[in-house]
C-alpha cells in the first residue's frame, strides 16, 4: 500500500500556515514524522485521520481518496490522538470491546479473541478489569494503541505517543510500536529524534508546514557523516563560536558546554569530528530551513 500526499495545504483562520504544499509518499512500514512544536505534524496527522479538512491538495491511499471518502478510510484506520480521555467508569476490556463493536467486529468470539490478544500484546491483561480512568500515562498510551489496532487497520496514525512518558514506559511503548508490522502503514509523529531512529524505516522532517527532508533515517544520517564536529567549551565562549561556526546544538556538561557544529570543513580546534546522528540531521536541517526563511 502507498499513501500519496500531494500539495497538501492548510491555513487556519488566524493566518497560521499549518501545511504548505506538503508532498510525501509513504509505504508500508513505520514512518516517522519529525518536527518541532507547531510544525504542522498534528494538522497533517489529523487531516489523514479524517478529522480535519485541507484547503488544497490530495491524499490518496492507493485508489482511495482520503479527503473525500472519509467513511471508507475510517474502516481501515487506526488512530491514536496526541492526547485523549476516557470514560471514567469503564474498564479497559469493556472499552476495547465497545470500540471493537463500533469498528464493525460483530462476531462475539472474534471480538473477544481480538480484545484479549490486544490486551495481552499491550501488557494490559492484568489490568483488564480496571477502569481506564485510573491508568498511569504509559498504560493509557498502550491502551490507546490497543484501540487503534482493533479491526486490522491498514493505516495507523500515532500522534506524539511518547510525549510525557518516563524512559521505561517510552521503551516499552516503542517496542510495542515496533511489533505492529510491516504490512501496514504506520505514521508516527514525534519531536523525539530517537523514536524515529529506533523505529522507522521512513521519515520526513516537517518545519513550519513544509517538508524539509524526507528519506530513510540511515540514508539521511550517512549523508551527514563527516560533517559533524563536537567540542567542549566554556560557557562564555558560546557566543563567539556561534558566530564563527554553524553550531546546531549544545548541552551542559560539568559546568561546561558540549557543542556540535555541522559543516563540511572542520571548524578547527577544539572541535573534533564525531559520528553523525539523526539528531544532527534534524537540527541542521531545521536551522538551514529557518535561515532560508529569513
Amino acid at each position: 500500500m502507498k499513501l500519496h500526499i500531494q500539495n497538501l495545504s492548510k491555513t487556519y483562520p488566524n493566518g497560521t500556515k499549518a501545511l504548505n504544499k506538503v508532498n510525501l509518499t509513504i509505504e508500508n512500514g513505520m514512518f516517522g514524522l519529525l518536527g518541532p512544536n507547531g510544525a504542522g505534524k498534528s494538522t497533517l496527522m489529523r487531516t489523514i485521520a479524517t478529522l480535519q479538512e485541507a484547503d488544497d491538495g490530495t491524499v490518496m491511499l492507493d485508489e482511495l481518496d482520503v479527503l473525500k471518502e472519509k467513511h471508507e478510510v475510517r474502516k481501515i484506520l487506526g488512530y491514536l490522538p496526541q492526547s485523549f480521555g476516557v470514560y471514567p467508569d469503564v474498564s479497559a476490556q469493556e472499552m476495547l470491546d465497545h470500540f471493537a463493536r463500533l469498528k464493525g467486529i460483530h462476531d462475539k468470539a472474534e471480538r473477544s479473541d481480538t480484545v484479549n490478544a490486544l490486551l495481552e500484546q499491550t501488557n494490559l491483561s492484568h489490568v483488564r478489569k480496571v477502569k481506564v480512568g485510573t491508568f498511569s500515562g504509559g498504560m493509557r498510551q498502550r491502551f490507546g494503541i490497543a484501540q487503534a489496532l482493533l479491526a486490522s487497520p491498514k493505516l495507523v496514525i500515532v500522534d506524539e505517543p511518547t510525549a510525557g512518558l518516563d524512559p521505561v514506559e517510552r521503551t516499552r511503548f516503542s517496542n510495542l510500536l515496533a511489533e505492529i508490522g510491516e504490512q501496514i502503514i504506520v505514521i508516527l509523529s514525534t519531536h523525539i529524534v530517537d523514536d524515529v531512529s529506533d523505529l522507522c524505516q521512513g521519515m520526513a522532517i516537517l518545519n513550519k508546514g513544509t517538508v524539509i527532508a524526507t528519506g530513510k533515517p540511515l540514508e539521511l544520517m550517512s549523508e551527514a557523516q563527516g560533517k559533524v564536529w563536537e567540542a567542549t567549551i566554556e560557557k562564555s565562549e558560546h557566543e563567539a563560536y556561534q558566530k564563527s561556526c554553524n553550531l546546531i546544538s549544545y548541552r551542559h556538561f560539568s559546568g561546561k558546554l558540549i557543542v556540535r557544529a555541522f559543516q563540511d570543513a572542520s571548524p578547527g580546534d577544539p572541535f573534533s569530528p564525531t559520528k553523525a546522528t539523526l539528531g544532527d540531521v534534524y537540527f541542521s536541517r531545521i536551522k538551514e530551513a529557518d535561515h532560508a526563511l529569513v
Partner: protein
Amino acid sequence: MHLFKEILLFEIKYRLKRPSFYVYTTIALLTGMLYGSILSGGLGPETTQSMGVGGNNLANSPILIHTLLLAIAQIAGLFIIAAFMAVPVFRDFQRNAHSLFFTKPIDKISYLGGRFMGSFLIVLFILLFLGVGMAVMIHWPWEDSGKLGPFVLWHYVNPYLVSIFPFAFFTSSIFFAIVTLSRNELFIYLNAIVMLVLFSFASTLSNLVDSKVLASLLDPTGSVAIVKHIEFWTVAEKNTQVIGMFPLLAWNYVIWMGVAIAIIVLTYRNFSFSYARPKMLKSSQKIQERGSIPVNIHLFGRTVSLPKVSLSYTWQNHLSQLWLLTKMELRRIFRSPVLWVMFAVGVLMMILTLLPFVQRMAGMGASTYPVTYGMIGSIVGGFGLFIIAAIIFWTGELVWRERHHRINELMDVLPTPSGINLGSKFIALLSMPVFFLLGGILIAIIAQLVQGYFRIEPGLYLQRVLGIEMIDHALFIVLCLFIQVLSPNKYLGFFICVLAFFGFGSILPSLGVEDRLFRYMSGYRLSYSDMNGYGPFMHPYMSMKAYWLGAAILLGISGAGLYLRGTENNWIARFTQLKQSIRKPVVLGATLLGAALFLGFGSYVYYNTHILNDFLNSKDRNKEQAEYEKKYKFLEGKAQPKITDVTLEVDMFPETQDFHVTGQYKLKNKTATAIDSIVFLPSLGNVEYSKFELSRSLKERIEDDDLGIFLLVLAEALEPGDSLYLDFEGDYQTNGFPNNGLDTRMAENGAFIPHSYFPEIGYNPLYEHTSPEVRKEYGLPKREFRFPPRTDTASLEYTLIARDSDWINFSCTISTEADQIAIAPGYLQKEWEDNGRKYFAYKMDSKMLKFYNLLSGKYEVMKEQFMMYDSIPIDLEIYYHEQHDYNLEAMMDAMKKSLSYYTENFGPYQHKVARILEFPRHHGQFAQSFPNTISYSESAGFIIDAESSDVDMPFYVTAHELAHQWWAHQVVGGAVEGFQFLSESMSQYSAMMVMKKELGEAQIEKYLQHELNQYLKGRGGESRKENPSHMVDQQFYIQYNKGSLVMYALQDYIGEDTLNAAIRRYVDAVKFQEPPFTTTLEWMDYIRAATPDSFQYLLTDLFETITLFENQILETDYEEQNDSSYLVRMKILTEKKRDDGEGEETNIAIKDYIDVGIFARKKVEGEWEDVPLYFQKHQFTQDTTELKILVSSKPSKVGIDPYHKLIDRTTSNNSKRIQKKSN
C-alpha cells in the same frame, strides 16, 4: 484578616474584567426593562392587563414594583447568583490554581470572606439593574396611558432593602457553601433545581397551611409573608403604601438569615487549604503496575499476529451498535444524581397536587373524585417542567459528552455513522420522560386506590402519558439535539433550547405569530372528558403532530449530517457531510418520508385552517370586533321588535358535528313607534342560512357576513302592537378544523347548542371592546363600561338575560342519533323514531326567558316523582353519564329540599319538571340554570366528592342553581346596577337557608368565613370601583361572596321569617312582570318596610354603602364570684368605617348592635368545642367600650362578633382567650 481587603478588591477587579459580569448585567437590565415595558403598556395593552394593571391599579404602584422585582429576582436572580456565588473558590480548584494560592500565607477568613464578599457585592450590583431597567421602562414616555403615578425613587429602593438583599444573601451563602465544600460543579445545577423548587413549593405550601404565620415563616424568600400581609389591602393602599418591615417578615428573616449565617460558619469550619477533598484522594491516585516488568527489546520486524476478524457494516450491525451506544448513554443518565433529584422533586410536586387537602383549598372547599384524567393532569403538571428541564440539560450533556471526556477524536474516526451516535442519544433521552411518566402513573394509581377509587383506566393513562405526551417530548428532544449539534458550546446551546421552548410556546404568539404552522411542536390543547374522550380535539391535534413529526425527521437527519466530526469546525465540510449522508438509501428514504409528512400534513393543516376555515389572529379578531361597533353602533338605540314565540326544529348530527335548524320567531313591536327596519345578529356559531325571511315584504336586505349582521328594511313599517314572523333555515357545519378556537359544541356525546347560535335581534353592546387600551388602539371612543344607574328607565325595558325578548313561548323538536337522548326546556310531548333517528318534541307551558340550550347525549336517566307537601307532583330527572353516579342522591335530595323551601317561602315553582343534565367539560366548567333545566359540566358537580369538604358541594350547587328558577326565571331585574344582586346574591341566600336547615348554623358559619376571605381578596383586585352590594356591576366577589355575607347578616338581625315574608311580598309583586323590570331599589322598599327602626341603619350598611368594621377584644379577664359564678370583664374596640369604593376610608360614628359572646370549653360528642355561655347583641356607641357580664360557669374565650357576621378585615382578633384576673 490582614489580607481580607486585598482579596476582596482582587475579587471585584477580577469580576469586572470578566465578560460574564457585563453579560449578566445586561441580562438583568433587559429583564427589568422587559417587565417595565409590560407594566407600562409598551408591549401592548393585553400584556399590561395580565399583570393586574388597569382601572385604578397604577402601573408603578409600590406593591407591584415590590412583588414583581422580588419575583424576577427569585428566578433571574437565582441564575445570576448561581453564576457568581458558586465559583469564587471552586474556580481555583477548577483551574488548578489552588496550589498556588494555598501555599501563600493567606488566612482562611481573608480568603473565604474576601472571595465571598467580593462576589456578593458584584451580585448585588447586578441585581440593582433589574430595578433600573424596570424604572426606565415604566417611566418611558410611551403615549400617556394615565395609569402612572409619579416617580418615587423610594418605591424602587425599598424592595431591595426589605426583600431582595436578604434573599440574595440567603441564596448566595447556600451556593457558596455547597460548591466550596463539595468542589463539584454538578452541585451548582442540583442546588439551582432544589432552590427553584423550594421557592415554588413554599408558595404552594402557603395555600395548604391554614396558619398564616407558619406559611410565612416557611418561605425563605419572604414572598408568602408579603402576599399574606397585603392580602386584604385595597387598591388605594396598594397604590400608595410601601411594604415596610412588618413583624412576620422580620421573624422570617431572623430565621433564614440565621440559617444563612450558620451555613457560612459551617463552610468556614470545614474548609481546609488542602490539595483535595479527603474523599477525592482515592480516585485521584493512579494505579501503578506491580513489580517491574522486564523491558524486552524486540527485533525489528517481529510482526504482531492478531486473530483474524471479519468486519461488516450491515443495517443489523448498525442496529446493534445503536443499542450498544444507547446502553452507554442510558447508564450515563441514570447514574447521575441530577436525574434522581429531578425525579424525586417531580414526585413530590405531583404528590402535593394529589393530596386531597390541596384540591380542597384550591376550589370552593370541595375536591373531585380522583378520575383518571384528573390524575393525568397531576402527572403532566407535576413532571412537565422537570421533563423539559431534564431534556434540555441532558441533551447538552450527551451531545457534548465525547468532547467533555476528550474521547471525541477516538470516536470520530470510527466507521460508525453519526446518525447511529445521535440516534442513540435520542433514544436514551426519550427514556427519561418515559421513566418520569411511568413513575407518575404508578403514583397516580396508588393515589386512586388509597382514596378508594377503583375505576382505573390503564388504557387512558398509556394513551395520554406514554402516547400523546411522548410525541411532544420526542419533538422537543430532536429540536434540542439539533440546537446542541449546531451550537458552538454547551451553555449557549442550553440558552437557545430554553429560548426555543418559550419562543415557540408563548413568545412568538405574543409577537403576533399565532399561526400554529409556524410554531414548532404546537398542537391543540387537549381536554379529556369521560363523556366524550378527547372528542373533537384528537384529529386536529394528531394532524399537527404528524406535520411536526415530519419536521423533526428532517431536523434529525440534518443534525446527524451536520454532526461535527473532527477537531475543526468547518461549515463547508459539515454541509458536504450532510449532502453525502443523504445519498445513502436509508437516509434518503427517511428524508423523503419526513418531507412527505411535513408537506403532506402541512398542506392538510393549511387546507383546514386557512381554506376550510378563515385564519384570524387576535389582531384580526380585535379589528373585526372594532369594526362591528364602528359600523353598527348607530343602531343601538333604534326601536326593535321583541321576540315573543320561538319554535325550533333541530336535527343534530353529533357524529359529523353538524346540525340543521328550521325555526320560526314571532316578533312583536312592543314600542310606541313604528319600526322600519330590523337588525339581526344571525348566529354566534357560524350557522349558514339558506332561508332568512320575514313574513312581510322587504325594501332592502343587507347581509354583512364578515361582521355577522343582517339588516332587513321593511317595505312597510311595523306599527306598534303589530307582529310578524321570521322563518329561517340553516346549517351548522363543522368543516375540518380552524387554527384557533375549535368549536367543540357539537360533541359526539353531549352536544350543547346555546340559544346564541340562533338569530338575535338588535345591535348588542356586549360585543364591544371593553379594554380602554384596545379601544384606543382601534380608534374607538372612550366609553365607561358600567351598568346604568337603577333610575335609567330606558334600560329597565329589557333584562340582561336577553335584550330582544321579555318572556317567550317556546317549543322545540330535536332529532338525534338513535342511541342518544335530546333535551330542551319544557315538557316532553312526544318521542318517536323515524328512519333510524330519534325525535323528541318539547313544549314549555308557561312563560320563560329566552335563555335555553339544546343537548344531545348518551345519557343514563334517573327519574323520580316528588310529591311536594304531599300534594304537588314534581317530576325530578337527572341525565348523567353512566360512570358519574356518585352524587345523584345528593342532587335529588337537594332538589326536593330546595323546591320545598323556596315554594314555602318565595311562592310556587312555575314548572312541573325539574331536571339536571351533564355536559362534557370541554364546553366549560360551570353550572347554569335554564328554565326547568340545570346544566352541569361533568366536572362541576357530578364527580365532586361530597365528603371532601365541610359544605356538601353537590347539594349546595344544586340548591343555588334551583334557586335561579325563582331568582332570574321568575324575578328578573332590568339591565341596570344590582341586576346580579337579584339573581346571584338572592340565589346564594336561598341556598344558604336550605343548607342551614339541613346542617345547622355551625356549618354555614364555616362557609361564611370562606366567603369573607374571598370578598376581601376580591376587593383588593378590583380594577374599577367597588360598588355597594345593591349596585353590583358584574363583580363576582360582590354578587356571590359579599351577597352571602350581607344576606346572612340581615336574616340574623331581623329574623329569617320576617325577611322571607318581605321577600315573598316582593316576589308576588314583580314575578313574570312585563317591562319596566324591577331593581334592587324596589326590593329595598319591601325590606325596609319589614325592618324594625332599630335596624334600619343596617340596611344602609349592608346594601347601600361599603361599611367595614374593626372589632377587637382589647383586654379581658374574669373573677370568680362567691356564688361560683364568674364576672367577665372585657374591653372592646368597635370601629366603623365607610369606604368610598376607591379605597378611601373614613371613620364614622357607631351606634350599632353587635354580637358579644362568652364561651366555655366543653366536650361535645367526644370533641372539645367552645360552647356559648352568653350570646347577645349589644349596642355600641363609642369606639372603646368596657363590658362586665356575669356567667354561670368558667369561661374560656370571649368574642365580639365572633361569627363574623359583619365585614371585618382582621377577624383573628375578634376573639380572645380569657385569663383569670391577676391581682
